[in-house]
């Protein structure tokens, strides 16, 4: 009895959660000008087609934005994970005297969110002539210290013996990082990397400010320009949203285990 109740409650809640996304997909596939409102609209699948997608792709630069989001996401993720891993290695395996000072300095990056330094950040980007350049999005994306804190915990778990054995085999410190620590923390790096990728893909406020031309826009910041464009129908807007949503949904479905692990790592251990 109780089991049945729980099962039904869970299934209903899950339906409620995916309802907005199903609605988005359905509207995006309906003929331009029709909506999904009443129950009969929900089950009428007769005219479904991909015309709206074709139209959005033709009339806007959405594919270009998708490409920009992909490039920025990958560059940010790879660079950030490598830099974080190097720093984590230094904190975890190289005993140095000023380590405490540097650690506090870097951890202070968790205190002040980007939202609170928008104005001077914009001014800095302006001076460096980075406004409307994809590096204006990538470089500030590398300042998040969470990767160092997480990876350091995993580096701490790399046994001393391994390092000593590698040292005897003639590895110097860079080799210890590259040949021992990097492979042993691979799964943690993947989780951290996915976390960075999603952060970058969904980053909204800063790209919205720092990118001014249509061709350098990324998806999350480019979408709102559709709202000010009155000629866009609901179906086209939902097709555009779906184009932005589908890649992350796919990444999520494929890499679920890592994502969930990454998120719980950031909260419980971090």
């Amino acid at each position, binding site marked *: 009895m109780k089991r049945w109740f729980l099962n039904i409650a869970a299934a209903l809640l899950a339906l409620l959660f995916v309802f907005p996304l199903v609605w988005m997909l359905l509207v995006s596939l309906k003929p331009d000008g029709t909506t999904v409102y009443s129950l009969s609209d929900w089950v009428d699948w007769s005219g479904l087609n991909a015309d709206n997608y074709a139209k959005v792709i033709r009339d806007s630069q959405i594919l270009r934005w998708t490409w920009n989001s992909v490039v920025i996401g990958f560059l940010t993720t790879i660079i950030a994970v490598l830099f974080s891993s190097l*720093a984590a290695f230094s904190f975890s395996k190289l005993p140095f005297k000023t380590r405490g000072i540097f650690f506090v300095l870097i951890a202070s990056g968790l*205190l002040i969110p980007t939202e*609170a330094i928008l104005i001077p950040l914009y001014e800095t980007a302006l001076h460096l002539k980075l406004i409307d350049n994809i590096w204006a999005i990538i470089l500030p994306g590398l300042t998040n210290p969470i990767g160092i804190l997480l990876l350091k915990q995993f580096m701490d778990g790399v046994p001393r013996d391994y390092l000593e054995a590698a040292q005897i085999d003639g590895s110097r410190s860079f080799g210890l990082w590259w040949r021992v620590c990097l492979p042993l923390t691979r799964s943690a790096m993947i989780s951290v990397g996915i976390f960075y990728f999603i952060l970058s893909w969904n980053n909204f406020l800063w790209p919205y400010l720092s990118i001014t031309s249509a061709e350098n826009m990324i998806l999350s910041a480019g979408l709102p320009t559709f709202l000010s464009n009155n000629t866009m129908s609901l179906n086209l807007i939902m097709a555009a*949203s779906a184009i932005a949503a589908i890649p992350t949904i796919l990444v999520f479905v494929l890499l679920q285990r890592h*994502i969930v692990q990454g998120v719980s790592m950031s909260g419980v251990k971090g």
Partner: protein
Amino acid sequence: METQITGRKASVALRRREPLRLRTELKAVLYLIPFLIPFAVFYLWPVCRGIWMSLHVWGIRGMEKYVGIANYDKIFNNPDFYVYLWHSFYFVLLCTPTVIALGLVLALLINERIWFRTAIRSAFFLPYVLSVSVISFIWLHLFDAKNGPVNALLGLLGAGELNWLTDRGLVWWAITIVTDWWTVGFVMVLFLAGLQEIPPDHYEAAKIDGAGAWQRFRHITMPGLSSVMKIQIFYQVIASLKLFGQVQIMTGGGPGDSTNTMIRYIYVTGFKKDMFGLASAQSIVFCVIMLMIAAIQFKLTDRKDG
């Protein structure tokens, strides 16, 4: 005796390495440099620069003149500041408790042996991976008063037409619903990780002692989740204070000014009114408030531990 000898040996070895210390020091710092360069340019420098800018009249073309603390004077004498600050806090009061309660319920549900557990967990987490513009677009239309499915669904239950996004009383609830839906998966996953740390034999023992479901929840689950709970509240308060995307896209701060938040206030002052100096000062005031809240939370939760 033996330890003394090895101790002395170790110190001899250390002393011999003494001249090398600077080198080891530099080598360790070398590994930090790749991270530190962007960190210094795009975090540390803007933090310091912001303080400097807040003391000036500053437009998009650059510094105009030094005005001391006049910008701060302006902020505290402007009633708008208090209104928007209150909006940000009001959103914390609405969003933080609801998202945490809902996340806890979902985590407890997933933790039971239900059918399609992984699929259902994915459904709850899925919205979290979408960008704020996508979720705002979807809900902007779901909440449409005339043609929105939310009203259609509520109509089936007998509710009248609700103006979700244009009614001052409802609009905050609309934004809370969107935000809860979007971020609750994150809260749930953290609680799930916390639930898995509670040893199952505690439940077994309580069952044998005849404790009911509610008692087990109160005396085993809740204490077991207390450290995760602290982190969650901490995260969610800060995240709620930073509200921007949802209101920018869904309401534009409206109706009237009723959903304008601190971050949007800073954005409008800086980028729409071209007053960088004043906006920097606003950022600093808001940042100090956030840090104070973080410190208070830290103090409060720390005391409970001891």
